[in-house]
């Protein structure tokens, strides 16, 4: 059996990363020029890594499916980015950020990785400011902070409600500078479809040109995945429409293990679903929970009248409102972590207290904050979010409470990596949301931007050298090797097979079916019976897909439906793995809530004795069950406890 090697460096926790950097192999400048690296994706992790490696002197090939690298979905992150700067003098420290992240992740992440993340968080803020990211400032010219869920300190840096955009533009601009210098070759509208392995090492990719439909080959000394998360397996999510798992999934099928696939985050504050034709869900930043209070009516008859549209939230008097988060969690109140807030909303709505026509919504109310601070202050803080809400729902949140409901938002699971972000395939690395590494079973708000940039700017450009130092004698090579022929043939056959189905169902119809199965059985609350049902229904759906999908147009042409169909083929397989992973983990932790395993008060009940490990799944062929490998998690510096936000 393959033993998973996490390769955590020796030494005390706080010294591991500096010890690693002091002792790792480096590549000298003359050799860097001779080494090529492929980076898939141009979000914070991908653009950050591509720019940083190019600055160091490596030759980088950067790929994205969008028309421009500036459009990667990191751009949609609203609220902010965490760092342990302690600029607010409120007692923050690297250890505290580390502790909060491990605890927030419900003790299912690797101590050494998370400590490193907290450690480099401060460098990220420095780097972004130097790039000209216009973070919010105090009147004295210093940086401002706000609070996010799961923390008792204000450590979140922000640029209005567009922090992800500003950080991404910083990385995009750094990348643009390297494109101009000739150190990065950009390949927009180019999707990775296969990984090429030569002599056991990742040596290139097969990509499809979105415009011409042509398959192309690219070679390199290493391949870095920065291809984002897989929330679109649920069809409705806060992900961009094009976000997909294909690059990661093809690597999984080539031997990269997939870590904790069932760990997905359901974000508590999204605009509720409004109809069957809906294409995606819109997030309202967690930062709103700083000033907004979440409630539902105390009385069922009030809820009924809200659901029938007879009254609005403003008609319900103060004494009849149930601020259930403040009631259940007095210490953290409305700022409990996302998984806790989402489940609490579901619990109230399942009990019949939902506040809109579907009964699947709760109020997020700014009345008190507007009275306390004034409308101007609230507008300055959240103006763009309020505007977005009004444009979508036609309700003015300055006057009536917002309605929100949880939605799929982020995947903590992903390709398994060791401390060096190296996958189980030599020469293949995974960064940002595409790897499983730092958030355990639940990610804290404002930590995705932190992890993306930590991996991209400060971790991968170092750790990849420990691998590339052994590759300096490999000259640049052509793409006419038989391994490239074979990899291209596999893609060609798969696409031809899709085009040949000529069925009657559109890709979106089938994708919605998958989404319903996933949300119903592999969503916010899971149980054994439902998960077994999901596995069966997904198998049936797979058959239906391959027998009945309808893809118009040509194979070798711009073909959006073909693009969507090939992504869906991979999502269907991923969905089955997620259900299987959720089924095997007989405990509740973070975003993974098994109804059979809860405390008397309805909180997640972990089983540390049997499940303090990362589940890393190995592909064994389409007709065989994947094999489970376990990486035990050892907590040396943190006492593992039941999470308590009361």
């Amino acid at each position, binding site marked *: 059996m393959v033993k998973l090697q996490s390769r955590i460096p020796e030494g005390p926790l706080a010294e591991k990363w500096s010890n690693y950097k002091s002792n790792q192999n480096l590549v000298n400048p003359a050799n860097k020029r001779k080494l090529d690296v492929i980076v898939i994706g141009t979000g914070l992790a991908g653009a950050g890594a591509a720019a940083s490696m190019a600055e160091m002197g490596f030759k980088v090939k950067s790929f994205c499916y969008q028309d421009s690298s500036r459009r990667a979905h990191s751009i949609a992150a609203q609220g902010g980015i965490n760092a342990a700067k302690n600029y607010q003098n409120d007692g923050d420290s690297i250890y505290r950020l580390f502790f909060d992240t491990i605890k927030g992740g419900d003790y299912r992440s690797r101590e050494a990785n998370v400590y490193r993340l907290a450690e480099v968080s401060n460098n990220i803020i420095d780097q972004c400011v130097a790039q000209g990211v216009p973070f919010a400032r105090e009147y004295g010219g210093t940086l401002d902070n706000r609070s996010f869920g799961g923390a008792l300190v204000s450590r979140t840096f922000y640029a209005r409600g567009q922090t992800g955009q500003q950080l991404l533009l910083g990385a995009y601009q750094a990348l643009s500078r390297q494109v*101009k210098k000739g150190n990065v070759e950009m390949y927009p509208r180019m999707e990775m479809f296969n990984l090429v392995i030569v002599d056991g090492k990742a040596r290139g990719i097969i990509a499809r040109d979105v415009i011409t439909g042509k398959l192309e080959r690219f070679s390199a000394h290493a391949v870095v995945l920065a291809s984002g998360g897989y929330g679109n397996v649920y069809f409705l999510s806060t992900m961009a429409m094009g976000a997909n798992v294909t690059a990661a999934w093809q690597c999984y099928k080539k031997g990269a293990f997939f870590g904790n696939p069932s760990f997905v985050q359901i974000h508590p504050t999204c605009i509720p679903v409004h109809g069957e034709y809906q294409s995606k869900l819109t997030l309202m930043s967690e930062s709103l929970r700083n000033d907004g209070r979440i409630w539902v009516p105390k009385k069922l008859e009030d809820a009924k009248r809200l659901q029938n549209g007879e009254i609005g939230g403003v008609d319900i008097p103060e004494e009849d409102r149930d601020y259930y988060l403040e009631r259940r969690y007095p210490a953290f109140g409305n700022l409990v972590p996302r998984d806790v807030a989402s489940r609490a909303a579901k619990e109230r709505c399942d009990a019949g207290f939902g506040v809109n026509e579907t009964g699947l919504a709760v109020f997020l109310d700014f009345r008190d904050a507007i009275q306390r601070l004034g409308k101007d202050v609230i507008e300055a803080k959240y103006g763009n979010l309020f505007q*977005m809400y009004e444009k979508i729902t036609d309700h003015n949140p300055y006057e009536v409470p917002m309605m929100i409901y949880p939605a799929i938002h982020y995947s903590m699971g992903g390709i398994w990596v060791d401390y060096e972000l190296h996958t189980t395939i030599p020469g293949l690395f995974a960064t940002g949301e595409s790897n499983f590494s730092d958030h355990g079973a639940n990610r804290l708000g404002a930590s995705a931007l932190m992890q993306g940039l930590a991996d991209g700017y400060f971790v991968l450009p170092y750790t990849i050298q420990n691998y590339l130092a052994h590759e300096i004698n490999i000259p640049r090579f052509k793409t006419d090797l038989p391994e490239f022929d074979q990899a291209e043939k596999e893609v060609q056959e798969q696409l031809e097979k899709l085009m040949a189905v000529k069925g009657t169902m559109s890709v979106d119809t089938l994708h919605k079916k998958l989404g319903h199965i996933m949300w119903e059985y592999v969503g916010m609350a899971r149980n054994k019976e439902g998960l077994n049902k999901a596995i069966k229904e997904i198998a049936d759906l797979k058959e239906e897909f391959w027998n009945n999908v309808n893809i118009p147009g040509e194979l070798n042409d711009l073909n959006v439906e073909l693009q969507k169909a090939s992504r869906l083929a991979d999502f269907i397989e991923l969905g089955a793995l997620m259900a299987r992973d959720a089924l095997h983990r007989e405990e509740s932790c973070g975003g993974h809530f098994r109804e059979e395993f809860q405390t008397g008060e309805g909180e997640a009940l972990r089983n540390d004795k049997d499940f303090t490990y990362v589940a890393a799944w190995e592909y064994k062929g389409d007709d065989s069950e994947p094999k489970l490998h376990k990486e035990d998690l050892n907590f040396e510096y943190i006492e593992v406890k039941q999470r308590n936000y009361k």
Partner: protein
Amino acid sequence: MNLKLKIWRQKDPKTRGKFVNYQINNISSDSSFLEMLDVLNEELISKGEEPVIYDHDCREGICGACGLYINGRPHGPDSLITVCQLHMRKFKDGDTIVIEPWRARAFPVIRDLMVDRGAFDTLIQEGGYVSVNTGSAPDANSIPVKKEYADLSMDAAACIGCGACVAACKNASAMLFVGAKVSHLALLPQGKIEARDRVRHMVAKMDELGFGNCTNTGACEAECPKGIKLTNIARLNREYYKAAF
């Protein structure tokens, strides 16, 4: 709602395009404009026809991928939003809606409503950045920035690169786009060091790429989904004069 759509269909950059009429029925006024196009495409696919091609991705108004003329206006009849945030309640039952791609020499049509905006990336590559390598930054609070300038800089940096400014301009000028980037960086101490080279190079490249001149009409500001102000063009001009002498 029942609607009549006139949509620009064009096979590729070299083939002549034309308007094609479609009738679409039973659209909810709560659905978004792009969801309405999704419904149309589902119908086309079920009839074995090719769906209408258009760029879109985040569907929350921030990635800048979507961009269409709707009844002659970039991003349609509502203000301060992108097409993906536009909702059908802004239209009336029985309306005829005309949908076209961006029209500008620097943004050639790829197919139907999809255009190539690579010229914007080329412009940023000409100096729309601060030349700082990863790892060489001083402590963040050692570079204080006056709040007023930080806010103005953020106003300019909010640009999403959608191209509506170019599409709205009768000369297809990119002055608002370039002005926004020049302003974002020129207002910050970090960006001041390279301000002269940046503005010279970006303006020269803008001319080279086939964008037109600015005549201060203000159509760009009126149609910008992020409310980028014309003052950024004024600042671009000031920065350009400063750099020239």
